């Protein structure tokens, strides 16, 4: 006999609501189904009703955590349509802010992952260190989260010379703590017990279901848009594409942690090699009919924009495919065969950009009786 465990659509631990329907046999998950759309705001349509300038601010609000990568992708696409190239310095500033964003996103992931497995000390430590990077972002762009740095044709704020020592000092602290976390992730008994061999995504399935970002890289798929289809300053910056082979929650965490070190390396390099000069070119926003696609590597993976212009100051169509959307298809193979108690950490291992739930309703499909359990209760089942 199987039970249906609906999860969602609300949970305060995650940013947006979503609904999952798990079919379980005893403790084992036999099937999973997702219902998206609880956070659907009609942004694709809204983007085609506003002009190119307004759309910068709208695309920034698609995702709070990875707002810079959204505006960068959008602005790069519009720049391609308009046939302009942003100044070199602007490309480097974009890369610096995007890498700081990746560091903050991965540390945020680490904190919540630690919380999901009941390791709250690590949660506090990771979020303490995340403050360093938030402070740097605030110093450079004026905003801790929404940087509003990008504009079509470049960036709006420069990285000032007097900021560089502070950034380097902040990076040093981040590097030290990241190395400590990597060491911890490879040796701590709690982490190893709760993360190894859980939610495994095989390399075959990662390729088959077109997984992107750290999820794919943790399953031994060497994919990174920064290397495969370099944009902005990434052509000139050197870094390694981090991969792990296991495909489990541990590997997904390790990929993200090791990527923080690579991001620190990129920021240092960009600060050193950043050319002088202007940070912005003026662009006429009456864009002739054309179409373009633009891809970038967001913290969660490949972010994709398609824009078609029609000769006015408003785009005809904007298509946005966020990395989490690209990773949903792989979910089933990560959950099926696992247990109910693994749901929180396996779900978080995708680093989903949506909400989960506050309570779980267990429905006995034989008697139709329902029982509501909280997410905390679900988490305690593991113990």
């Amino acid at each position, binding site marked *: 006999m199987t039970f249906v465990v609906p999860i969602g659509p609300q949970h305060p631990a995650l940013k947006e609501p979503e609904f999952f329907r798990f079919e379980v046999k005893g403790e084992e998950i036999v099937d999973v189904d997702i219902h998206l759309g609880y956070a659907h705001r009609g942004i694709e*349509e809204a983007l085609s009703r506003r002009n190119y300038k307004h759309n910068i601010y709208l695309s920034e609000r698609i995702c709070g955590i990875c707002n810079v990568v959204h505006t960068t992708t959008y602005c790069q696409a519009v720049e391609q349509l308009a046939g302009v190239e942003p100044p070199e310095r602007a490309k480097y500033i974009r890369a610096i802010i995007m890498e700081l964003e990746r560091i903050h996103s991965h540390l945020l992931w680490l904190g919540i992952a630690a919380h999901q497995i009941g390791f709250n000390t690590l949660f506090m430590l990771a979020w303490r260190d995340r403050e360093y990077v938030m402070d740097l972002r605030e110093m450079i762009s004026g905003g801790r989260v929404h940087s509003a740095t990008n504009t079509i044709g470049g960036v709006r704020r420069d990285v000032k010379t007097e900021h560089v020592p502070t950034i380097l000092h902040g990076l040093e602290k981040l590097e030290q703590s990241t190395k400590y976390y990597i060491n911890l992730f490879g040796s701590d008994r709690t982490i190893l017990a709760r993360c190894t061999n859980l939610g495994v995504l095989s390399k075959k399935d990662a390729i088959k279901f077109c997984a992107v970002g750290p999820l794919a890289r943790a399953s031994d798929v060497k*994919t990174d848009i920064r290397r495969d289809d370099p944009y902005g300053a990434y052509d000139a910056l050197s870094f390694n594409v981090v991969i792990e082979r296991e495909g489990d929650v541990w590997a997904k965490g390790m990929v993200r942690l090791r990527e923080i070190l690579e991001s620190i390396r990129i920021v240092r390099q960009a600060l050193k090699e950043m050319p002088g000069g202007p940070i912005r070119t003026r662009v006429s926003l009456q864009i002739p009919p054309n179409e373009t696609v633009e891809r970038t590597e967001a913290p969660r993976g490949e972010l994709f924009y398609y824009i078609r212009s029609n000769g006015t100051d408003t785009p005809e169509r904007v298509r946005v495919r966020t990395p989490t959307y690209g990773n949903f298809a792989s979910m089933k193979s990560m959950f099926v065969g696992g247990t109910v108690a693994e749901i929180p950490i396996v779900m978080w291992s995708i680093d989903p950009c949506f909400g989960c739930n506050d309570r779980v309703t267990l429905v006995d499909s034989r008697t139709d009786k329902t029982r509501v359990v909280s997410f905390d209760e679900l988490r305690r089942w593991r113990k």
Partner: protein
Amino acid sequence: MDSHEVAALIKKHVNDIRIVNDRCLFATSDKQRCGDVLLTLKGRGVTHISTITGVDRGDVVEVIYHFDCRPAQLNLKIPLPKDDLRILTITDFFPGAILYERDLMEMLGVKVEGHPDPRKLFLPDDWPEGEYPLRKEWREKSK
């Protein structure tokens, strides 16, 4: 494969090709030959589909498949007349397209034939039949 290699590979199955640069090209085909393009790509080891875009162009709905041919991005366009909005599923070749096809069905009203799970994805289950939010008619109506 770079753009020129992809273009050489698929040229007999497509009507026109526009090479933007080494890593990006657009091609237009039709739904009869779409399967041949997919088979050719699959045969050359292309496994990743970034997404599917639907664009309402007035009389036609353009379905654009975005394939990652490492490093080239192939954007394959299939125009479908509005009185015959049907296309075969590509999930047999690219299982990762399963959600994008559901998105295409509900947002633009393209009927994807043979789709293994043709339910709504983003829109609520009680969304009225025949209302497609990314169609031009809908935009006019909702202004």
